[in-house]
């Protein structure tokens, strides 16, 4: 008698395709996945508890360490929420700088996401390293401006911490000029690759209804064909003054999510160009009290991070520290549908699907 016995495969916490210390227990039947169970928390630092002990400004570094691939977006989200809570005005130049840095961060983060996705599909790191080329330049720009490459801690409540140095602007110009060409190169590298297309097309399909109901956000939601982008629907930092498009997928598969990200980097380049053109002189920061004491109340501020809606739910009791500090982590919530997608898929497809959701474990665990 022969029967196939299901067995448990432990993917992670240390595994090349989990992008960090993320663990999935998979019940497999041969190469097919029967069931999965996510086990997260290896990087849990209880940020939300720690934040209740610190002032709003002191909490900004936590956002660097939550989504460590998109620190600028995290900074921006917290600052916007705190500004709304404390009713702080932001100078126009600061808003433009924030847009520039947030969009640069989006390009860097999408480059990482797309590169690792192709690596998960089995390309031996070549596309990843090509996409790192621009990411390196962006991180150089960050380093020039605030001295750090990943954990930038750049934005402040009421503006940004520093004015960029003089050599920043020509370097940025150069980067923005060469970016469209480079993005075309990546598109060609991957789009015209039959193997990559065969590995990603019609894999891990999420229907628009499921995506909305499963609280998916960002490229995962847009890849499924739902045109939803907070920069358009709830404009902040003057995004309504910039012209850009929201790319939306047609099928909802891995390939769509990849292409949406790639197209978003193109649009981000456009936004940066417009921001450079329209930036004006002025202060980069408004002065706020050292210990900001917002009125008692609550606010849910959110930005469109590279991974989607990055929300900060702040509750103030009038003291300098937030009474409750909650991060709505898109990486975690985008995983809600992973189990449905992975069931019945083969191991190789599940790995690619996980890569296309683009998780950052620092943000999942916080």
């Amino acid at each position, binding site marked *: *008698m*022969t*029967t*196939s*016995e299901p067995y448990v495969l432990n993917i992670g916490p240390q595994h090349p395709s989990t992008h960090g210390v993320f663990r999935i227990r998979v019940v497999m039947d041969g190469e097919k996945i029967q069931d999965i169970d996510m086990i997260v928390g290896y990087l849990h630092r209880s940020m939300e508890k720690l934040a209740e002990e610190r002032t709003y400004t002191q909490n900004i570094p936590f956002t660097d360490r939550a989504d460590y691939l998109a620190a600028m977006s995290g900074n921006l989200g917290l600052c916007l929420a705190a500004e709304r809570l404390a009713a702080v005005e932001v100078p126009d130049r600061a808003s433009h700088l924030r847009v520039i840095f947030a969009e640069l961060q989006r390009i860097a983060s999408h480059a990482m996401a797309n590169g690792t996705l192709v690596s998960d599909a089995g390309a031996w790191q070549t596309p990843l390293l090509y996409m790192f080329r621009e990411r390196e330049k962006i991180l150089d720009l960050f380093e020039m401006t605030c001295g750090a490459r990943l954990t930038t801690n750049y934005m402040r409540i009421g503006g940004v911490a520093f004015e960029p140095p003089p050599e920043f602007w020509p370097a940025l110009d150069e980067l923005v000029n060469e970016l469209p060409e480079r993005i075309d190169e990546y598109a060609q590298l991957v789009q015209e690759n039959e193997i990559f297309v065969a590995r990603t097309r019609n894999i891990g399909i999420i229907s628009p209804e499921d995506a909305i109901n499963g609280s998916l956000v960002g490229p995962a939601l847009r890849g499924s064909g739902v045109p939803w982008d907070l920069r358009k629907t709830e404009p902040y930092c003057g995004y309504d003054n910039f012209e850009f498009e929201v790319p939306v997928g047609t099928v909802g598969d891995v390939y769509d999510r990849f292409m949406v990200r790639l197209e978003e980097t193109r649009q981000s380049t456009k936004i940066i160009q417009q921001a450079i053109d329209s930036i004006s002189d002025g202060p980069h920061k408004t002065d706020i009290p050292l210990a900001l004491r917002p009125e008692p109340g609550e606010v849910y501020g959110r930005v469109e991070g590279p991974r989607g809606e990055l929300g900060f739910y702040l509750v103030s009791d009038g003291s300098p520290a937030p009474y409750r500090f909650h991060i709505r982590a898109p990486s975690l919530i985008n995983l809600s549908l992973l189990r449905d997608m992975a069931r019945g898929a083969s191991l190789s497809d599940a790995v690619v699907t996980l890569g296309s959701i683009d998780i950052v474990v620092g943000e999942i665990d916080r």
Partner: protein
Amino acid sequence: MESLGVVIAFYVLSTITIGSALAVFLLRNLVHAIVLLVLSFLGMAGLFLTLSADFIAISQILIYAGAISVLLVFAVMLTPLGSRDNANSLYINIGAPVGFLISLLIGFMAWNTSWNELSSNEIKQRDFTDTIREIGDQLLDKHLLSFEVASVLLLFALVGAIILVKEVKKEEDLIVESENS
């Protein structure tokens, strides 16, 4: 008649072949048994080589050590974990007499055959360099009918295997049986 090297090789190879075959029979671990069975096949190939039958030796390696062993591997992998031991003792009551009868038959045939003893001179004259062409000629000339019958039989087996795989989705054991046969 034979050079000493060949004699030594014969005894070493026979020891390996028979020893590992016995171990296959005696070992409890099915996986170890497969590995030793392959060793036995290889020893057999070596024995063929000592007889200057290079084509048959290579075929032995290709078919038995390379292909049949993989088939056995699949069979083992599709066996449930519980019955993955070498349950030879179950069938020893039937197996022992059958084995004895078969060896008796072989022995009788060996005894009965009038062996064409070649002198060492004749061996030296005989050309062993192109056995393969001779085999090919024989197959497509003298033994053409059996050759064709064998190929038709193989085709039937192939088609049968495909039909079994297509038809019986719920009883996968049939597939393995067809592969084993």
